[in-house]
């Protein structure tokens, strides 16, 4: 029965209260552990097509008569357009349409960051569009930009309200502490740099529009573009078959989709608007920089008695302020916690969600600080974490739907126990060490999400839902779930997705929500189809439904009978069995979170500041694992991206003008395959018994979260140096080493004086 409930909806750590209609989710739970298909190591169903170049990305699309767009973007971080002359562009060769600030909301005459879109040109070729855009004449009034986040806080330049939080009494907790550590941590701006740049192709047909777009949220694009264009949503068809990476930056239409839609309308042609690699490095969103001024206090027995922090999020010109303070509030059972988060508005390109926004940054600060505390207390870092284990969500005293972090810690022990062995590898300037960090994050997904399934007379099934596979292997996971429930081989299931006109509403693929939101809907659709098949089989074989089941492509009965599935479905000829499923509600009154721990082994050349990550062991608790192989690849991807964030990636801004200096991939340094360490991934495959018919949580984000802190803590273990800022470049490493030397000298001096 459909039920109307009021519930909290969470995406990327942001909450909203919403009304939703949910269907009951009354299926039996599958037993824990690997099943016939679910939980096995399954290669991607579309792997071969991708490897052969046959998968159709938005970037591959060529429509007849399609035009190409170049966007004129502001070269100034803060300026006013005094005058703009589009005519020289209009008269340029190959140009079909030119639009400026007067024509579209997404084009501005008061840019607030370098890269803010000002005008756009559609031409027969991209080269012509670019040449024409260069001919646009703009007279600028260049204004002084605000670029410093602390200065923005002083001026109260914010994108939203300052967020204050306190539980218990921070000051009192601090007063009762034996040991206090304080430190300032900084994290840099990193850019998603998806292989497929942000892009859309818009095509008006009849009275509606078709939007081909590289997106993480087909239905979000449909809703916001319908709103933008003043169309009924069903007049907006959104298509995304394969996608070359998003990492959080492709949840919305951006500026490029409205630009393409407008130019397509004016020219009555399909129009592509695709960001160049350089635009991608400037105007496609980023993980914003943070400054974290943190305090941790404990009694000598290791009990955390106070945690506090001022968190400055350098959000940029617009965007939202991620919960950088989240880990401090949620990870440990500390009674007295006080945080303030400042969402600084700056004349820098706006942030966009980036794989666990806020928690990646906040975990770096908190987990480094905790290790500094462990050193001061003389307590083993793993022990300290166990001593302050949270048994419930202390922000609102809700129980966890499931939490197996203790099991993660237990499995980390053998790796952690190698500390002396790893340290003993030190030779000459190369010092070896080992460090760990915990992970906490959301990832429970939620309703609404729907799936249909159709089973034909050949006994094969097609899952139909208008979701997207953002490259994470969703198609494969959904096929596994349907195959498991229907008891048919994996290759008898096809998944049709990627088109809002073909299938029901599906969840956003962000916040690690795809599998936990969509998986249960697919299982429930398959169960609906299975129920019908069994009903028919019962009539066909004159048996009771309750003695029948589907297994290995057979209809089986408890008394040992077995018939090929096609013996029943074959009766249908062209008929089909249609199943329908919906995502049930999240467990009421419970907090659904993911957990984990990572152990890093590093080596540091103390003379040149080179940091080499030798190994990362990642142990995560995300409930039931659907595809063991796919999960491993998510862990590896998260860790590799985390290594970039930790060691080499950094957007370089000009401190005077706010111009972005790192616009190409030789200046913006992502890790190469040579930078990838040995990665051991282990998943605590225990279904969450309160969460949906699957007990699965999401895994897209968790693996990137503890990487930086685990590496920084290993560096401390190896060298005694306190890393305070990301990325850990040579200069940061050498600075930290010299500071540690000075500290050591001072300590020895003090000791000698005594």
């Amino acid at each position, binding site marked *: 029965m459909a039920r109307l409930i009021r519930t909290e909806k969470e995406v990327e750590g942001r909450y909203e209260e919403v009304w939703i209609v949910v269907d009951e989710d009354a299926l039996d739970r599958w037993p824990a552990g690997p099943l016939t298909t679910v939980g096995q190591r399954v290669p991607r169903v579309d792997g071969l097509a991708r490897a052969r170049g046959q998968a159709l990305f938005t970037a591959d699309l060529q429509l007849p008569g399609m035009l190409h767009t170049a966007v004129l973007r502001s070269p100034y971080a803060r300026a006013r357009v005094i005058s703009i002359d589009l005519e020289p562009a209009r008269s340029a060769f190959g140009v079909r349409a030119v639009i400026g600030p007067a024509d579209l909301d997404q084009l501005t005459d008061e840019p607030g960051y370098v890269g803010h879109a000002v005008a756009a040109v559609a031409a027969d070729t991209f080269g012509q569009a670019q040449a024409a855009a260069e001919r646009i004449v703009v007279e600028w009034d260049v204004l002084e930009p605000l670029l410093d986040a602390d200065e923005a806080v002083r001026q109260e330049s914010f994108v939203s309200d300052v967020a204050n939080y306190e539980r218990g009494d921070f000051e009192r907790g601090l007063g009762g502490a034996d040991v206090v550590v304080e430190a300032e941590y900084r994290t840099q701006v990193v850019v998603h740099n998806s292989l497929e740049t942000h892009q859309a192709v818009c095509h008006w047909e009849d009275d509606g529009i078709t939007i081909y777009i590289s997106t993480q949220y087909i239905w979000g694009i449909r809703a916001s573009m319908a709103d933008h264009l003043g169309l009924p949503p069903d007049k907006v068809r959104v298509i995304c078959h394969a996608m070359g990476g998003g990492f959080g930056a492709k949840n919305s239409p951006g500026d490029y989709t409205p630009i393409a839609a407008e130019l397509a309308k004016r020219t009555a042609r399909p129009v592509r608007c695709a960001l160049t690699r350089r635009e991608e490095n400037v105007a496609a969103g980023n993980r914003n920089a943070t400054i974290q001024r943190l305090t941790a206090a404990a009694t000598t027995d290791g009990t955390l008695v106070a945690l506090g922090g001022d968190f400055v999020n350098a959000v940029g010109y617009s965007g939202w302020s991620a919960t950088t303070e989240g880990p401090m509030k949620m990870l440990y059972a500390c009674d007295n916690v006080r945080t303030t988060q400042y969402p600084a508005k700056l004349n820098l390109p706006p942030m966009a969600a980036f794989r666990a926004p806020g928690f990646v940054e906040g975990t770096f600060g908190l987990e480094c600080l905790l290790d500094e505390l462990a050193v001061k207390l003389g307590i083993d870092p793993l022990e300290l974490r166990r001593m302050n284990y949270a048994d419930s969500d202390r922000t609102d005293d809700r129980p966890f739907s499931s939490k197996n972090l203790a099991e993660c810690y237990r499995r980390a022990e053998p790796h952690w126990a190698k500390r002396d062995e790893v340290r003993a590898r030190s030779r000459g300037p190369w010092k070896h060490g080992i460090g760990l960090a915990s992970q906490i994050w959301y990832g429970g997904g939620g309703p609404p999400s729907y799936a249909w399934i159709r089973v034909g007379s050949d006994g094969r099934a097609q899952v139909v839902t208008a979701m997207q596979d953002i490259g994470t292997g969703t198609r494969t996971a959904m096929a596994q779930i349907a195959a498991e429930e229907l008891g048919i081989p994996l290759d008898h299931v096809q998944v049709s997705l990627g088109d809002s006109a073909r299938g029901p509403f599906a969840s956003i693929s962000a916040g690690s929500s795809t599998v936990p939101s969509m998986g249960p809907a697919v299982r429930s659709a398959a169960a609906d189809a299975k129920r019908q098949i069994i009903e028919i089989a019962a009539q066909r074989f004159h048996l009771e439904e309750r003695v029948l089941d589907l297994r290995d492509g057979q209809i089986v009965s408890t008394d040992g009978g077995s018939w090929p599935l096609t013996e029943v479905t074959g009766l249908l000829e062209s008929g089909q069995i249609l199943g329908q499923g919906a995502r049930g509600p999240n467990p009421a009154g419970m907090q659904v979170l993911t957990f984990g721990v990572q152990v890093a082994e590093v080596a540091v050349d103390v*003379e040149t*500041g*080179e940091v080499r990550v030798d190994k990362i062991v990642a142990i995560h608790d995300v409930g039931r694992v659907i595809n063991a192989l796919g999960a491993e690849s998510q862990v590896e991807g998260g860790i590799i991206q985390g290594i970039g964030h930790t060691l080499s990636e950094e957007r370089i801004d000009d*401190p005077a003008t706010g111009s972005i200096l790192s616009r190409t991939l*030789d200046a913006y*340094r992502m890790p190469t395959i*040579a930078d990838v360490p040995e990665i051991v991934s282990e998943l605590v495959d225990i279904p969450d018994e309160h969460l949906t018919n699957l007990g699965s949580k999401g895994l897209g984000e968790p693996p990137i979260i503890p990487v930086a802190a685990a590496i920084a803590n290993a560096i401390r273990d190896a060298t005694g140096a306190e890393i305070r800022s990301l990325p850990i470049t040579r200069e940061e490493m050498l*600075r930290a080493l010299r500071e540690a030397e000075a500290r050591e000298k001072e300590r020895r001096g003090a000791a000698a004086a005594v």
Partner: protein
Amino acid sequence: MELLRPSSPEEATGALGNGSRALAGGTELVPLIRDGLVKADTLVEIRDVVPRGVTGTRIGAGTTLAELELDGEIPQALREACAQAASPQLRSMGTIGGNLLQATRCWYWRLGFDCWLHGGETCFARDGAQREHAVFGNDKCASAHPSDIAAALLALGATLRTTRREFAVAELYRLPTDDDRNVTTLAPDELILEIELTTPDASTYLKAMDRRKWSFPIVGVAAARFGGETRIALAGVAPIPWLLDSVAILDEATPLPGTGYKVEIARALVRRAIEAI
């Protein structure tokens, strides 16, 4: 734009100058043209004109870095410098001649800021983003020369043969001045044909990078020993490849606030390079 394919050095040099440029592998020139940093209406492809391959101690300027990194006969410093430069794809296209003539990676320069080296008044790096910049010879332009190979050739005491002259590789480079902002002494219609090496008793190249591969040198150190004499040259520390007359010169470095760490790295790598040979 026109593409010429001359078949003799004379024909090629005749076509050069006046807005035309020599094209070797194109890995540097093509991006510069695309970004509007080099204006050229004619490209003169020099593939059939400039020698390619190694004969004894002579290296054709058209030899690719990929060919050199696999050559067991050339001194180790050069082989290592080639192997650690750029990426496999770039090394397959990029020639040693083109590598010596690559422009700075200074982001201000590459983005077309009207900076001193571009003929303007100010060096924006001096008060700007400067972690990749110079620690020597940086009073006018603080850019860091990106060529690993040039540092190796400098330490190896190589000489160049061009269509006009023969000279030490050190003389290919000059610090830019107010009157002449060029960093090389090559005439617009002059082609490098060959590089002549002297064979050291031992040599090596050590490179500090921001990641393990495919990264310009933060600091590159080439060292070559000829009998009792050791020659050391650095990449990534000055607007041109920098010969280090003695290790003590490192004490005279003039780093910017953001580049002091390079001196520290150079010290360690120079010591290691000397120990290694």
